[in-house]
């Protein structure tokens, strides 16, 4: 899914880009020039030269292309994307997921004869012996469950919850925030007070209610339920964005041209707020995976016999001294997923930030100076 997320659709300009999609097409350079008007006055005074250079760098590019370019330059985000994609492929194909068949020989629910003493991992990575995967690379628990299969299953569950929360909470948050920010007045007050109320409710209570309701949560129900208590930050941000965007000229222009409120919201304002939304959806996901694991750890999320990364750790934490691998591997997957998502979010934020300027490192400047001197 990370693949789809990266580039902004070309039709959707980056935040604050001035022309709305169905306004008269304006050259992008003009859009950017207006953009600088958003900056503190000092940046204008900084000189036309600087702007000219910046415009040169983005000449003839659509907003989507600019954002994509900036994103690809963020090395951390790219590495994180590779990691996340790798994890998703591994998790999906190894033990199979739904219709997708798996290539791993064991499953997560059966027990197997214990191979190494104590169920120690058979994965060997050393200079002298080379790399061996062996029968149970991540080890086994006392009963003989295959830790690799269990970790894969747990990661599947945690990823499902993460994506569900990310998507659903974003949709709710955007709906609430857009309505409140665009219509203001009573609707705004009402919706925002409701948001305040929801913020106050402890997530744990939701887990409990859910446990009662469906007799133990599955990844699906947990994701759905948590999405209903995680949309508030998004709605506040979207509202703030809408409050500022609705006062802009292009909204007036659209209204004078006879566009309905829905059309203005969907076609004119929303595409301009897409940066804020995407960035926060990503950050929401990194929070979501930690939330899911924490809830499952406390026993309010996914329960045994179903597996999530959080309840694996909860189950085996007392065995840490004797069987540390039962503890390291699920933790490693949680951290890697959360870290990758965080880095991708950082890359997206930089890419969508109109004030972002690329400052070459001193070494690059020196190299350029040397080149210029040699010429």
């Amino acid at each position, binding site marked *: 899914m990370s693949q789809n997320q990266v580039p902004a659709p070309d039709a959707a300009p980056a935040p604050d880009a001035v022309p709305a999609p169905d306004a008269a097409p304006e050259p992008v350079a003009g859009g950017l020039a207006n953009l600088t008007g958003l900056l503190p006055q000092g940046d204008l005074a900084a000189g036309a030269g600087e702007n000219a250079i910046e415009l040169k760098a983005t000449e003839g590019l659509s907003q989507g292309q600019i954002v994509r370019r900036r994103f690809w330059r963020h090395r951390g985000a790219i590495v994180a994307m590779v990691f996340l994609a790798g994890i998703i492929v591994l998790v999906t194909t190894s033990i199979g997921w739904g219709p997708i068949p798996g290539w791993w020989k064991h499953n997560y629910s059966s027990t197997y004869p214990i191979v190494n003493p104590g169920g120690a991992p058979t994965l060997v990575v050393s200079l002298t012996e080379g790399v061996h995967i062996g029968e149970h690379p991540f080890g086994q628990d006392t009963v003989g469950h295959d830790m690799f299969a269990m970790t894969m299953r747990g990661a599947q569950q945690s990823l499902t919850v993460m994506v569900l929360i990310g998507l659903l909470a974003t949709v709710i948050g955007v709906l609430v925030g857009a309505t409140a920010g665009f219509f203001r007045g009573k609707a705004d007050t009402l919706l925002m007070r*409701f948001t305040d*109320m929801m913020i106050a409710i402890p997530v744990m209570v939701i887990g409990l*209610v859910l446990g009662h309701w469906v007799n133990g949560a599955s990844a699906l129900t947990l994701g759905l339920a948590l999405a209903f208590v995680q949309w508030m930050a998004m709605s506040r941000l979207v509202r703030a964005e809408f409050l500022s965007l609705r006062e802009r000229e292009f909204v007036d222009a659209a209204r004078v041209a006879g566009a309905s409120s829905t059309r203005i919201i969907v076609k004119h304002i929303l595409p301009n707020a897409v940066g804020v939304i995407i960035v926060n959806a990503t950050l929401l996901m990194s929070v979501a995976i*930690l939330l899911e694991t924490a809830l499952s*750890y*406390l026993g309010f999320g996914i329960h045994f016999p179903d597996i999530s990364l959080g309840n694996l750790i909860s189950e085996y934490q007392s065995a840490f001294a004797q069987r540390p691998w039962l503890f390291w591997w699920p933790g490693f997957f949680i951290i890697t997923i959360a870290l990758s998502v965080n880095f991708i979010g950082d890359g997206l934020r930089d890419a969508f930030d109109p004030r972002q300027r690329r400052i070459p490192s001193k070494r690059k400047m020196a190299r350029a100076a040397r080149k210029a001197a040699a010429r």
Partner: protein
Amino acid sequence: MLAPVFSFIARRVAVGSVVLLGATFIVFMMVAWAVDPLADLRTSNVPNKQFLIEQRTEALDLDMAPVLRYFKWLGNVVAYLWGQGTFGVAVTNGQPVADQLAVAVPTTLKLVSASVVLAILLGVTVGIVTALRQYSSFDYLTTFFTFLFYSLPAFWVAVLLKQFGAIRFNDFLADPRVPIWAVALVALAVGGLAAMVAAGRPRGRLIIGLVAFAGAAAVMGYISASNFLLEPGLGIVGVTLTGAGAAVALAALTAGLSNRRALWASLSTVAVGAALYFPLQYAFVHASWPVLLGLWATSAVVGVAAGLAWGGDDRFVSARTAALTGLVMSVFVFADRLMKAWPSYVGHPRVNGRPIGTLGAVTPELGGTFWLSATDVLTHLVLPTTALVLISFASYTRYTRASMLEVMNADYIRTARAKGLGERTVVVRHAFRNALIPLATVIPIDIALIFGGAIITERIFSWRGMGTMFIEALRQGEIYSVMGYFLVTAALAISANIVADLIYAGLDPRIRVNA
């Protein structure tokens, strides 16, 4: 001038109360629907089961509709605020909710206060340094680590800390000799960091790095060779030296080293502290927290007096610097006294050579002097505090960095530079203060959140604070305990929001509260 502030507060409190009412209603309904307070009785085999069920139904009004029960509970809360009755009693042990809260709130306060202060100090410092060294390798390194800390699950960190911070460290204390490779590693890390943070030419940075490397190696070597970990102590020489170091650093930071009077004022405060070192040891025999806090405040007064005594046009600046020095100096004296209690604490039969506690807030039945129990409190705080700091420090760092970067690009900073102010004045006086404004609005909300949210840390380290109370009440279906917890945390969160807005309005003259 004051009127708009009051009407603002009144309006916000009114709106906040409505929000609180709504939120308590929602939570009450959900909990009432989800928990079954009769669960343990239904499955039990006692002969008078039916009677017990009826009794509890009577006590909890289970035959009433949840909506009515909510309003009854609300009535009880209002009555309690008037000083009558109690808002609910726990079924399983018959304890009033107010009493449960009276135990849980101080425990949580004890748990989170140290970590909040540490996380803010550390986060702000690191954030400012990364902002000043934007795009340096130090910046990238911290960025990576802050993201890593963001991504750490609290329970995972806590279990690791228990293993390595407590169990392994306690094992290590049996024979506390630091191996030479560890000394080298730590010294390398310190030297490398110092070289990264230092500004200027490569040569100067290399020298700074080497000095830091040598210093760290010397300190580590001393710790290992002198058996410091088992018989620590600074002594009057150590206290004076560290105090003088702090005095110079504080003077450099808050007044600039060119301001000689501030430097001399802080150094004389240190001298006063050193002179009082031996008399204080007698005063410490019958120490208690109020006495110590009084002494701490006195040290600030001494500092102010020293600053004023040195006089000059900038005497208030000197007084401020010297007062800060006094506060730091007295912390060193206090730490020195605590260290003297360390051997007797480690050797105490109940501690038995394993000083870093992993369970609970205190060692039960420890007894002994004030210093012994103070050491005990601190050793139990070490691990949970580390866990909480690790997790919340990352967000403070990012936040400070962003806000500092924004400020450093502002026009007034350019103006300050253009009129020839020194870098210290620009950074500390013009940039730092303004960068703190947005931070000041985050901190109250964060404190309110961490207060209700240290659930996992409390659970792993077995602290009986708010989080434990909440989780256990949820498990046992104690709706009134859940509501008690929720009332406190939600009220705190809502007031934190109001406080944050007020602070913002107070600090930033562009914001008006009567909006």
